[in-house]
């Protein structure tokens, strides 16, 4: 069997902390009722981390994904979950404390993404409504 080269990438914690902060701001900005253009600046910041920061190296950048509302099962090793409620079937992500952070780089013209931070989430069964 041909083994895949196991990629272990250590992204400095400061970068992850920075991404987590952007994520927090994004979360808060969506709750704002007044009209605002905060999302624009956030997208810009995300764009810089994704495309500008590492220009000139094989690294493409850092992106994050907010898995809110997605289904959850024990095969999802991209999330660290805590289950709320009593049911364990038909789980859904109801709260995201930290997002999934990906590190992308290019190898032989292929874009490879590696998870450098699993999401920290709270999940709950869709079968019940509290």
């Amino acid at each position, binding site marked *: *069997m*041909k*083994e*895949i080269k*196991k*990629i*272990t990438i*250590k992204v400095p914690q400061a970068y992850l902390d920075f991404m987590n902060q952007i994520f927090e701001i994004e979360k808060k900005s969506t709750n704002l009722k007044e009209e605002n*253009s905060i999302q*624009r600046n956030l*997208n*810009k910041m995300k*764009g810089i981390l994704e*495309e*500008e920061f590492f220009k000139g190296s094989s690294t493409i950048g850092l992106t994050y994904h907010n898995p809110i509302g997605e289904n959850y099962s*024990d*095969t*999802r*090793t*991209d999330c*660290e*979950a*805590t*289950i*709320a*409620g*009593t*049911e*364990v079937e038909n789980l859904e992500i*109801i*709260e995201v*404390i930290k997002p*999934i952070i*990906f590190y*992308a780089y290019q190898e032989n013209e*292929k*874009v*490879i*993404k*590696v*998870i*450098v*931070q*699993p999401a*920290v989430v*709270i999940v*709950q069964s869709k079968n019940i409504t*509290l």
Partner: protein
Amino acid sequence: MENTINLGIDLGTTNSAIAKFVKGEVIIFSNPQDYGRNTLPSVVSFKKDKITVGNKAKEFLEKDPKSVVGVFKRKMGTSESFKIKSINESKTPIELSAQVLKELKTFVNTGDTLDAVVITIPASFDTIQSNATKEAGIQAGFKQVVLLQEPIAASLAYANMKKEREMKDGQWLVYDLGGGTFDVALIKIKEGEMKVLDHEGDNFLGGADFDNMIVEKFVIPKICEKYSFSNLEDEMKSATGKFNAKYYVLLRRAEEAKITLSSKTSAEIVIDGFEDEEGNEVDMEIVITRSEFNELIKPNIDGTIEMIKKIITRNSLKPVDVQFTLMVGGSTYIPYVRSRVEEVLQIPANCEIDPTTAVAIGAAYYAATKPKEISKGDNNKKKTSISIKVSYNKASKEKEELFAARITGDVTGLSYRILREDGGYDSGIKKLGDRINEDLPLVDGAYNFFTLAVYDDQNNLIETDIEPIGINSCFVISGQPIPEDICLEVDDYDNPGKTRLKLVFQKNSILPLRSQGISFPLNKGMIKGNDDDFIYINVLEGSHLALPEANKGIGFMEIRGTQIKRDIAKGSDIEITISISESRDLTISAYLNMADQEFKQPFNPKERHTPIEFLKEQVEDLSDKLELEIQEATDKEDYETAGALNKLKKEMETVSEETENLTSDDVTDKRYQLEDKKRKIAQEIDSATKNKRIQQVKAHYFEVKEECLKMLDENGNDHERKTYNDIVAQEDAFFATNSPLKIQEKSDEMHSILSRIRWRTPDFLTSIFQWCKNNQTRMNDQTQAKSLIDAGNFAIESQNWERLSEINSGLLNLMPKDAEKEATRIGFGL
């Protein structure tokens, strides 16, 4: 084959770990499914078709106790078994421990045969419990299992770290406070023999209790002080409570705060995202100080100290008889635990080893001293003759893709597991039949690799002929490419008053496309309400190396003073985003930073958008340009070019005249026809004068090249020489493009080598410094300028050129924006 066991496992109540002794060092194998963590939660979950061990099982432990089992180590050696509802079977603590051991085997990536191991056990384990642990090892496929007591393992890790294989006679304590259990043991070494003299423990105390205490005794009361809740604690802690989900969020935040408090004196806990009973939004930040946290856990820590005191009394010892307390287990990272134990007992706390992996490390050191007792005959790798045929889509934009495989050969006792390379998916270990059907989740915009591993009944890896599974989720294969470059017309700072093209999407890029925001400072200001103030945004299709006039306009947007909310200053940023959908709809959006205002306009390419005013302006510019080029060519006696341009003159005049006659509300196609004509003339001017421009940029290129070579000979390094040679090697290619822009690009690259070298040469640095000194009055911080100048004079005196370079940068930073350009031009021609 290795002659010693070398492999050590810490089979813990809450967490386990595996380590190996290799050539004098111990390697801890990290958990491949847990982002480099070294430990595996000792929790096993059962479903009809699969068994999961570790973190994922732990998540379900509390809520699904009928299928998930943890802390079974406490029941080792008892006749008790755990009834598992999902598979309708009972599992003994031995079988469960064997599952954890089997999972740990999959951490080992060195390809070794795993047939012998040292497994650690608590000091409190009796013969039956010890034998049960041994049996678990055998069930996990180890042929030889040697047991070692945990406090001894920790002590060995310490001794080896200290490089003291032979420790001096004496006694010490091993204080092991983990995630959920506490143990303390008194160890004695006499004439090289280490043994456990006494021990105590609490099976229900650990770090998780501290997180709970922060939430219950600190956070919840603070929330209730500020907001109205009649029964918040119950609503949070009850599984059916309204705020049960919030309770777990707080537990996570409390854990983070606890970890922060190990290195800082205070930590914040953010509480938000729900409402109190009066409808007020809860949004607060609580600060917990280290002393407040210490106060919370004090009773528990004092409880552990009481146990130590019992041991000391029972063994008729005085604190001075004990050399130190060796701290083991993750919770001993808490500074208070260390200091309190030391303070009360008056025995030094020893925190020199990594508390989470010490036991596994010690086990591996011990394993390195134990000979293997397995004959070579037993050691043959299990061979199977299965063949796997796979089928799946190699490219997909779906969220999941079905992976199917057919297995031929004997699959009895075999299992499989599929993992995604980025660590985001684990199918769990499943029984292998003659078919596999799995929905594999894909990460969008990346190449997804999966591995399919096949194991025997003891989790030994079986060799198969399967290649890694690769699914491309980057683009849709049938995506359409764009036939031409898409460009934005921007100011040409090198030729004031003129414009050039900025490439936004390159020819053949696949639709849909969306650019990142492109920011520019505005070259003019705009007054609110003034209709004469405007900004044009012009998007063109065609080669980005051509002149703007020669390309086809596909989108044009104007922003007028009447549309803006406030005055906009010259130099403030405009950010332009361009997107093209799969069906070629173009959208331009422009954002004025200063006004915090966005303008967005979709363009349907079928409707050409050509404002007459803009067309008139372009035609006028082009006409002026033509005149200028003819004049220049005639002056240079380049009659061939002048002749070619003169031929265009008549046509230009017609276009100018007709455009001039257009009314601003003309509804005919005339404007489009004129635009096409204008474009054609521009293309012809472009090709007639290209030679002239090429000659200019080539001459500039050779000038820079010569200067660069000279500098390289004098002061260049290998890297700069290589960059220079690379550019020279491409000369034929970029000259052949006949594109002035391409050649200019290479001149710029050459120029940057030149600048780099110059910034190391004493003459250049001194002259820059001199220039800065002469311009000191222009600097915005005179005190700093003066101290930098003094330092610079000293740097020149002591010939410290590196320092002078830093000082120059500092001085230039104090100057207005373009000063660097100005300074570097002084006396250097280029």
